[in-house]
């Protein structure tokens, strides 16, 4: 391959690092979104036998939001392989023990033979503390799906006072 063609090859098949903020996001919807970047499906050069997946760094995975009753009802099954080694772990239990574990992305790639090594390119962190050398590689931010609501005490006091009110509590009302 000539020098020019080698550089062109290197540029076209470059592996991009993306970052995704998972705070207040539904992990199952996010998994469908991140799957596209991890597998390289958004690239026009995609082919199943062409190893064109990108890296994705997920931050704030401790603050994900499962819909409805999922925290109480979603159960993850694990079998060690030994007799009597079956365990059923609830989502809240699993998350409290390891906040980086949400098998949503893994399960969304069910049936895909490249799942195991595609998952190796997904780096999950429970908060925003990411090692500097990983963060230095990042060149794209993936947009969130759900908007993040802002807490009332995070707004500046002036803005809260000036905000238009429809009605107000009476002066002697006791707010519990």
């Amino acid at each position, binding site marked *: 391959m000539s020098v020019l063609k080698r550089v*062109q090859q290197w*540029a*076209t098949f*470059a592996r991009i690092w993306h970052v995704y*903020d998972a705070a207040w996001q539904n992990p199952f919807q996010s998994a469908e979104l991140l799957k596209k970047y991890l597998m390289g499906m958004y690239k026009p050069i*995609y082919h*199943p036998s062409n190893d064109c997946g990108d890296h994705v760094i997920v931050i704030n995975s401790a603050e994900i939001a499962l819909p409805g009753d999922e925290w109480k009802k979603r159960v993850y099954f694990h079998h060690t392989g030994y007799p009597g080694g079956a365990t059923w772990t609830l989502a809240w239990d699993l998350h409290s023990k390891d906040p980086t574990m949400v098998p949503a992305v893994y399960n969304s790639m069910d049936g895909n033979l490249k799942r195991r090594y595609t998952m190796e390119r997904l780096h999950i962190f429970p908060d925003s503390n990411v090692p500097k050398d990983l963060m230095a590689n990042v*060149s794209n*931010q993936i*947009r969130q799906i759900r908007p993040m609501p802002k807490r009332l005490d995070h707004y500046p006091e002036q803005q809260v006072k000036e905000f238009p009110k429809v009605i107000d509590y009476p002066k002697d009302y006791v707010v519990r």
Partner: protein
Amino acid sequence: MSNKHLFLIPGFIRTPLQNGVGRYVGQLQRVVLKFCKNNGSSRGMREFIESGLVNFANENPGVVVYLKPRRHRTAVIKAEYLNGDSQWINCRNFTQEEVLKWLILLKSQSKNATGTRIKKLWHTDHPSIQGPWTPYTFRDPELNLVEFPNDILSKPAIMERSSQDELIELFNNKKIEELESKRAE
């Protein structure tokens, strides 16, 4: 398991029996317009049948047109070609112009060509002048100066206007009106 659904079927452009070199024979054999008698999604199809269908049938004497009114099903065009191919087009919520456009397309086709990637009879050693795609081809150059993670870039792209935003706008407009009326006084 298979990845066939990801790719188009490659094929050259071919005409049956050099159609058009001497005489031209329309390759569409029959067309069945299936529609619901009273559902709103078939309205365009019904309007087309009332207005434009007879003209279409008269202009194309080689195509047999069947009508199939059936209840509680979406409007559909099913076309069959002389080579045995059939094509199925869902006409849910189409306008009558759209139905006509699809019929004209079917009339001009010689087979069902959906999902086909056309192979070219030419070859070039330089398929791209501007250079092949790289992950940086269609990127906003502002991204080069951004420090990650970025709050603004993280926000969802399509944010619907909430009722809260509309109320704030109403309030602000009212305030402006009051100020202007005071100034007028």
